[in-house]
């Protein structure tokens, strides 16, 4: 498996740490109800098809990446840096 790091180019997946769903990007406000935190921390879809998840270029540039890929075809549809996406600021 290979991922295309926007900074480093195509790289073997051994350079990356897999974190999990993109849900982690959507941090509820501190006063959000417990359900919102539960959603973000624990509730996951398990799609046969397109999924978006987080990978860390651990032995590369240290970028967190948001990878859009297919769980059925293994195709990588898009890769962007988490820091570059809209609303990545506090």
């Amino acid at each position: 498996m290979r991922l295309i790091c926007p900074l480093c180019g195509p790289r073997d997946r051994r350079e990356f740490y897999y974190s999990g769903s993109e849900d982690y990007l959507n941090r509820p406000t501190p006063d959000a109800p417990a359900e919102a935190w539960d959603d973000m921390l624990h509730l996951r879809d398990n799609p046969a098809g397109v999924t978006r998840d987080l990978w860390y270029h651990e032995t590369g540039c240290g970028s967190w990446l948001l990878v859009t890929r297919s769980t059925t075809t293994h195709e990588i549809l898009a890769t962007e840096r988490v820091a570059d996406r809209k609303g990545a600021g506090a």
Partner: protein
Amino acid sequence: MRLADKGLIDRSKLVTFTFDGRSYVGFAGDSLASALLANGVKLMGRSFKYHRPRGVLTAGSEEPNALVEVLDDGQQTPNTRATVQEIHDGLVARSQNRWPNLRWDMLSINDLAAPFLSAGFYYKTFMWPRAFWEGIYEPLIRRAAGLGKLLPKHDTADYDRAFAFCDLLVIGSGPTGLMAALTAAKAGRDVILAEEDHMMGGRLLSDDGQIGGMASADWANATIATLRAMPNVRLMPRTTVVGAYDHGTYSALERVGLHVAHRPHLPRECFWRIVAGQTILATGALERPIAFRNNDRPGIMLAGAVQTYLNRYGVAPGRRVTLFANNDGARIVARQLMAAGVKVAAILDSRPVASVIEDCPVYIDARVTDTKGRHGLTSISVSHAAGSMEVETDLLMLSGGWNPLLHLTCHQNGRPVWREDIAAFVPKPGMIPGLTAAGSANGVFSTAECLAQGRDTAAAVLGLADLPDLPHAEAAPYAIQPFWAVPGEGRAWLDFANDVTVKDVKLSAQEGYVSVEHMKRYTTQGMAPDQGKNSNVGALAVLADATGRGIPETGTTTFRPPYVPVSIAAMGAGGRGVGFAPQRFLTSDQASRDRGAPMIEAGLWYRPSYFPKPGESTWREACDREVMMVRQTVGVADVSTLGKIDIQGRDAARFLDLVYTGTFSTLPVGRVRYGLMLREDGLVMDDGTTARLGENHYLMTTTTAAAGQVMRHLDFVHQAYCADYDLRFISVTESWAQFAVAGPKARQLLNSLLDQPLGDFPFMSCGEVTIEGVKARLFRISFSGEEGYEIAVPTPYGESLFRDLVARAETLGGGPYGMEALNVLRIEKGLITHAEIHGRVTAFDIGAQKMIATKKDCIGKASSTRPGLTGPEREQMVGLRALSDQPIGAGAHLFTPGDKVNRENGQGYVTSVCYSPTLSSWLGLAFLKDGRARHGQQIRLVDHMRKTDVLCEVCDPVFHDPEGGKLRA
């Protein structure tokens, strides 16, 4: 029998080798199989189940019969295919799966017992009495089963692994592969041409045809020479591509040194990972045998294999040859044998309509119905359109058609499609993105078509316009009429390696195992080292027939990597012993070893366990001494393994407030604060101290164990939640060597060393100091409970500073201390490590809930107050003091005295223990239900592993100096 003037072997180089203890001579370029055949050796192995005498069937890596053990380099490599093993001087090979020898094998009794050993026999035969299974049946079967044997010792030979990248990977160097590689290479693309054989050229080395007006082998050699001279081409002979993975990644096994006797500078094998922009599968096709009674005798071979032995190795594997075929193509082999002066007794064509014009007798509508010759074929029984007959023959050639070698295209769960006209499965395009089959692997069989498809496929996948000319070559059509098995009595073999017969497959269907995957498992069809390459299609044709379905409806089993057997040693190359994981060494490593310190692993780091002194016979003596040394004078320890993260920027303080439970924006410059870091789910991630070196400059320390995790976490929080912060941070763990100097004489020691004596430097201060002009960082922090400092210098100064600190400490009655003492000191002080914050504890559990600042948000804050993460039902950290001298152990469980010791009554567990020389008692840190309310109570510690049962007193975790007076001294 070796023929004069034929073959691509080097007749000027004689090679001596042994097989089953007998010495033979072959030529350089021979395979073990060709050299044995040249010496008249036909019997090369015994079958798996019935121990039937077997000879070589093929000339390639798919060989099911001629599996031998090769002994070299202190190794014994079982199941080596004699068709792949090149001979070299000193090669020692022997047959396997026989006793006492290959000709007289006791277990060939199994062959007589065959009626009881049909498919699934072990599911039926050994059912009664039930108690016999484990003690009698299974050991017996295990002893009888298996092919070659491994030596029961470590493989100490060298293996390697490597990575390669290219625009185009061409797998196979026959006409298709050579033309594809040439086309891409001439267009300037980076090309890797991988070939399983040691000689490139594929079928062109065997077919004795013509390309572009020259012998096809000459054309192949000229093309290979052209490719070799190009800087953008890498030729990889002896390399089998074994797996196709995602995104253009392929695995390949290179037999680097297995063809030479002595290889001081060569590994045995190399496991490659090749990443290719595009890949062309030009692996060709494999010939299929035909099933009939006793079709497995030595002397029965595939026609294409005979052609290889004849033309490439100059060997005639028989003197009186017959051919049984269902297609036109195989007849060329008979003609070539006759041209070489070998007698061809008969061509037996299964088709009712076929040409009978050859220079030997041809029988149409013919069937081989039986064979004779136990250790070598002597005659065959034939029925044909005009009657039946016995034919004397010592070599029967089979050709049941050809199967495209499409395995790699199916490695991602694809299924091939059936083509009626060639009676074979062909790859479905697009099953693996970037992989395109061409030539015979794609179902075209004439040399001219292969050359054209090689060129055109390369052009298509790479988008090339300027193409090389195609040389003229043979373009005969491939005429086949499917014929799988001769009906009749007796056993007709499908899977030679696993002894699966037509009867077995029919029995499977009869007993309801009609799915091809069930049939495979019931009969073991295709589960031998050749993975059914010779037999799967034939077997599923028989299954289709038995179930009344067509072959496409019956379908294939799943293709999985690896394409050929790969040794685990090759896959794990470099990962044995110290190569298993990287090693990280402290700057003080040598100094510690010089003092005889045993080193222990802490993650990837190696740290001194303790520093033994003369007269100390156990680690405990050294450890106790080191603990008391720190408590009474001064000790020095290397703490450089702690993670160090340098954090800078105008928003560094805000960032720390977000990741730590505490507030760091209010920390004054020149001060240090203890920080607790939570995961977002409210559990404790890590702890450590962070120093404010400047207004916008912090230095965070992490635990040794979690340094990587914390870095990853900080990167995530930064990039995901506050990418717009003015903030940069980087790990500087290896840039600084850091030493703890702890004990009542710590300050005295430092003052003797520093260029300027310490002035007012209270607990939790930090600042820059100099040592002989070298800038150093000094932190007044303590992991021991004593007055403690940590001094950090750039790594190049680490070793000399350590040696200097230790020497100065010794003049004060102190010295170095290791991990054991460090652990005792921190337990006595009730300080946690990842033994305590093991991923299931909250800030509440460790008594640090008050450290979660109320006035700001932080990661994990919201979750830390979830129901169930706080409260009396939680197991809370406590100290334990043993009420007897009996040792206690971590991992023990806690019970209320008087309660029955069972899981339901469990009150908690112990995470760390030590013998405290300071308090002359065994101490522990533990998690106990509602523990903070139970200080002063007694608890029963039960350790089933160590068989201990000790009464302890529950107390505050801080045993030593609970007021902290010593810290602040």
